[in-house]
C-alpha cells in the first residue's frame, strides 16, 4: 500500500476517543453488537414479566395482582386484570419477544459482533448504516413501549394484528385506536432497521472476506447469519408495506383490509370493499420466514458450539448448509399453513400443506447430523454445550408437533388451540433462547475478557431445561383437549376442568422465570469480577479465537489475517500436540488439510 492509501486508511479507521463515539453512537460493529444484546436483554425481561402477569391471570382468574393498577388504572382496577388488558399484555408479550428478542439477539447481537471477525474483516462495509440500524431498532422499541402509556393502552389484536379488528380503529375495542397505530408504526420502523442490518451482513459475507477465506471456509455461524439476512431482506420488505396499508386504513379512511357492510355497536362502518384475507397473506408471507429468521442463527450457533465441544467436525457440513438453505427457500412456500381454515380456498390449503410436510426433511437432516455427530465424539460438558444439547432436545420436541399442524385435516382440531402455542414456544421460543444462552456462555469470554461462572451456568441450565419442559409440554395436552388460545378466562364447560393444569403451568413459569435471574446475576457479576479469560478458552479454531479477549477496536490490529484451513480442523495431529488447528495457522496437516 502506498503512503496516500495508508494515510487514507488510517483516517478511516482511527479509534474513537469521545465517550459518545465509543459507547453511544459507535461505528464499531462490536459495540453495536453489544448494544443490540443489551436491548434484547431489556426486551426479554419485559416480555417475561408480561408472561408472568398473563399466566397468573389464567391460573387464578380473580386474583388481584398487587401493584398492577399502577401500570394501568383502567386495565387492572385494584389489581384485577380485565379481559381486554389480558389481551393487551398478550399482544405486547408476543410482539416484544418475536421482534426484539428472537430477531435481535441471535441475529443482530451476535451477528454484528462476530460476523466481521469470523470472515476476517476489520468492520462491516457500511458502519454508518450499521449504527443507524441499531438506533432505528432502538427507536422502534421506544415507540412500541410507548403504547403502554398513551391513549387507552396497547392494542389487543395479538402480534398477528388480523384485520378488520386491527384496521377499524377504536370501535373495535380498547387500545385499537392510537395503540394499534403506534404498534404498526413501531413495527414499520423495526423493518427499516432490520433491512439496514441485512444489507450489511450480506455485503460482509460477499465482499469483506479476508485472504484465503473462501465461502467453503466460512464457519457455520457466518453461513447462518448470511442465510438469515437473505430471508430478512425479503420478509421485512413485505411486512413494511403491510403496516403502511394498515396505518392508512386507520388514519386515512382507506379500505385495504376492511370489507363493506360491517356493523359495530349498531353503526355501519364507513369502509367498503377491502379484503380481510389480504392482511393474512401479506402478514404470513413475512411471518413464516420470520420464524426461521428466529431459529436459523441459533442453529448456526449451537452447531458451532457443539463442534468445538465435541472436538470433531459435524458428519457433513454440506448437509447442514444445504438443509439451512432448504429451510430458507421452503419457508416462503409454506406460509398458508397458518391459514388452513381461514376461508382461503381449500385447494390452497392442501397446496400449502405439502411443502409444509416437506420442510420436515431438512429439519430432520439437521437433527440427525447433530445427533449422529455425537457418536464417537469427545463431548465436553460445560454451560455452552449443555444449552446446545438442550437446543437439540427442544427442537425435536417442538418439531414433532409440526407433524400434526402441517396437515389441514388435523388442523381442524388443533388450529387456534394451545397446541399451536406449545409448538411455537418450544421450537422457536425456548430453542432460540437456548441458542442465545449457548452463544452467551461461549462468547462471553471473548467479548469481555472474563469467564462466566460455570457453576451458576450449569444451575441455570438444569433449572431452565426442566422448567421449560414443565411449562410447554402441557400446552400440547391442553391443545388436544381443544383448549382455545387467546382466552382471558376459561369459562366454557369443557375448559373448566383444565384449569388445574393451567395452574401447574403458571407455577412452572414463575419458577423458571425466576431462575433466569441467576443468568442475569452471572452476566453482571462476571463482567466485573469474572476470572480473566485467555484468548482461546475453548480451544476453538475460527478467527475470533485468534484475537485477544476482548478484541482491540480494529479487530486484527490493522493487518489482514490469512486463512489456510476450513473452520473445523479438530481431532488432528499437530506439531504442538494440540488436537486442533486454527484457521489462520500456516501449519499443514497430514490428513485433510482443507
Amino acid at each position, binding site marked *: 500500500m502506498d503512503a496516500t492509501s495508508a494515510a487514507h486508511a488510517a483516517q478511516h479507521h482511527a479509534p474513537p476517543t469521545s465517550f459518545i463515539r465509543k459507547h453511544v453512537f459507535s461505528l464499531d460493529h462490536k459495540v453495536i453488537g453489544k448494544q443490540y444484546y443489551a436491548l434484547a436483554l431489556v426486551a426479554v425481561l419485559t416480555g417475561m414479566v408480561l408472561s408472568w402477569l398473563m399466566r397468573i391471570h389464567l391460573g387464578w382468574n380473580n386474583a388481584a395482582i398487587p401493584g398492577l393498577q399502577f401500570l394501568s388504572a383502567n386495565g387492572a382496577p385494584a389489581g384485577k386484570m*380485565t*379481559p381486554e388488558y389480558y*389481551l393487551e399484555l398478550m399482544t405486547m408479550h408476543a410482539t416484544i419477544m418475536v421482534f426484539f428478542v428472537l430477531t435481535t439477539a441471535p441475529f443482530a447481537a451476535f451477528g454484528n459482533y462476530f460476523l466481521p471477525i469470523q470472515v476476517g474483516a476489520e468492520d462491516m462495509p457500511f458502519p454508518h448504516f450499521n449504527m443507524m440500524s441499531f438506533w432505528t431498532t432502538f427507536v422502534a422499541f421506544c415507540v412500541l413501549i410507548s403504547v403502554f402509556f398513551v391513549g387507552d393502552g396497547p392494542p389487543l389484536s395479538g402480534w398477528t394484528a*388480523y384485520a*378488520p*379488528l386491527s384496521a377499524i380503529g377504536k370501535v*373495535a*375495542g*380498547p387500545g385499537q385506536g392510537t395503540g394499534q397505530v403506534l404498534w404498526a408504526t413501531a413495527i414499520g420502523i423495526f423493518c427499516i432497521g432490520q433491512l439496514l442490518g441485512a444489507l450489511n451482513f450480506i455485503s460482509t459475507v460477499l465482499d469483506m472476506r479476508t485472504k484465503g477465506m473462501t465461502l467453503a471456509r466460512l464457519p457455520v455461524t457466518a453461513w447462518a447469519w448470511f442465510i438469515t439476512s437473505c430471508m430478512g431482506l425479503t420478509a421485512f420488505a413485505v411486512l413494511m408495506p403491510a403496516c403502511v396499508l394498515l396505518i392508512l386504513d386507520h388514519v386515512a379512511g382507506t379500505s385495504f383490509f376492511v370489507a*363493506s*357492510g*360491517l*356493523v*359495530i355497536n349498531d353503526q*355501519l*362502518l364507513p369502509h367498503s370493499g377491502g379484503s*380481510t384475507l389480504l392482511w393474512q397473506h401479506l402478514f404470513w408471507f413475512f411471518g413464516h420466514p420470520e420464524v426461521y429468521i428466529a431459529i436459523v442463527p441459533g442453529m448456526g450457533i449451537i452447531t458451532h458450539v457443539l463442534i468445538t465441544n*465435541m472436538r470433531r467436525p*459435524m*458428519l*457433513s457440513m454440506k448437509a447442514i448448509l444445504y438443509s439451512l438453505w432448504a429451510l430458507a427457500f421452503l419457508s416462503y412456500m409454506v406460509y398458508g399453513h397458518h391459514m388452513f*381454515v381461514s*376461508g382461503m380456498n*381449500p385447494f390452497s390449503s392442501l397446496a400449502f*400443506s405439502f411443502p409444509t*410436510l416437506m420442510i420436515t*426433511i431438512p429439519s430432520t*437432516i439437521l437433527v*440427525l447430523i447433530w*445427533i*449422529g455427530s*455425537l*457418536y464417537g465424539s469427545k*463431548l*465436553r*460438558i460445560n454451560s455452552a454445550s*449443555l444449552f446446545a*444439547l438442550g437446543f437439540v*432436545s427442544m427442537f*425435536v420436541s417442538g418439531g*414433532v408437533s409440526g*407433524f400434526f399442524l402441517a*396437515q389441514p385435516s*388435523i388442523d*381442524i*382440531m388443533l388450529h387456534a388451540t394451545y397446541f399451536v402455542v406449545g409448538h411455537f414456544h418450544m421450537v422457536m421460543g425456548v430453542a432460540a433462547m437456548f441458542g442465545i444462552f449457548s452463544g452467551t456462555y461461549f462468547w462471553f469470554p471473548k467479548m469481555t475478557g472474563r469467564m462466566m461462572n460455570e457453576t451458576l451456568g450449569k444451575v441455570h441450565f*438444569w433449572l431452565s431445561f*426442566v422448567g421449560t*419442559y414443565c411449562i410447554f409440554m402441557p400446552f400440547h*395436552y*391442553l391443545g*388436544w*383437549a*381443544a383448549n*382455545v*388460545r387467546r382466552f*382471558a378466562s376459561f*369459562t366454557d364447560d369443557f375448559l373448566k376442568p383444565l384449569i388445574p*393444569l393451567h395452574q401447574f403451568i403458571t407455577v412452572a413459569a414463575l419458577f423458571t422465570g425466576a431462575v433466569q435471574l441467576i443468568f442475569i446475576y452471572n452476566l453482571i457479576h462476571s463482567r466485573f469480577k469474572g476470572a480473566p479469560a485467555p484468548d482461546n478458552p475453548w480451544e476453538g479454531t475460527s478467527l475470533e479465537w485468534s484475537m485477544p479477549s476482548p478484541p482491540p477496536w480494529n479487530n486484527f490490529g490493522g493487518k489482514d489475517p490469512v486463512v489456510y484451513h476450513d473452520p473445523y480442523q479438530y*481431532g488432528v495431529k499437530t506439531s504442538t500436540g494440540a488436537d486442533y488447528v486454527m484457521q489462520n495457522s500456516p501449519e499443514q496437516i497430514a490428513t485433510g488439510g482443507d
Partner: protein
Amino acid sequence: MAKLLALTIIVIAIASAVPVVMHTWEAPADVSTHGHLIDEQMSETMIEAGVSFLAAQIILAIFIWKFSSFHTDGKTRTFPGGAKGLVIAALVLVGAEVLALGAFGVKAWATVYFIPPSADALPIQVQAGQFAFYFRYPGPDRKFGALHPELINEANQNFFGLDPEHDPDARDDIVTAEMAIPVNQEIHLLMHAKDVSHSFYVPALRIHQDFVPGLDLSVHFTATKIGKYEIVCSQLCGLGHYSMRAYLSVMSREDFNDWLKKEAALQ
C-alpha cells in the same frame, strides 16, 4: 453430569409420552359423520410423531451418556455410514412418512371441503359478531330474507338487519340465540361475519371454520348423537372473545320440530 443429562432427557421424554398414552387429556368424543377420518389421521400421526420423538430423544441421551467422557488420547470415531446414511434415511423414511400422512389426510379434508352439501341439507345461517352468535332458520318458505346491515339494531333484537316490512322472505325467518339441529340430519351452515373475524369451532363435531368479513362461506356436517355441545369462537375478536359462545343442541326430529315451533312463536 453428562450421564445425568442423558437420564433427564429420557425421563422427560417418557414422562411426556405418559399422558398421551393414558389419554389423560383428549378431545371430546366425536359426534359427527366425518370426524372418524380426522381421528384416524390424528392417531396415525400420534404414533409416527411419538415414535420419532421418543427415538430421537433416547438416542440423543444414549450418545450423550456414551461419548462424553473425555479421553485426551482417544481417537474420535465416525457414525457408521457417516452423513450419507442419515441423509438418505431422512429423505426416504421421513419423506415417505410425511408424503403418506399428507396423501391419506386428503380424504378427511376432502370430505369436509370438496364434497358439496346434499340437496336435502337443512340450511341454517349463523352470524358472528362481537361477542355472540345468532342463528337464523329460513322458516316454511325455505328462503332467507336479505340482510340489511344498516338496519341492525341490537336493542330491538334485529340482530341480522332483516326488513320484514318490505321483504316477504324475511317475514317467516326464525332468529335464535342458540342452535338446535335434528340428529342424523345434514346441516348446511351459512356463515356471515357482522363486524370482525371470528371462528366457529365445535370440537365434538370436528368442525372449525373462520368467519371472513366480506366473504360468506359455508360448511356442512351431520351430527350423530343427541346432546348439548358448546360452540366457541376461536379467532381473536376483541375483549369478549373468551366469553363468545353458543350452545348447540342435537335433538330428535320431533323435539327439533317442537323447538322450532316454539322459537317461531317468539319472533
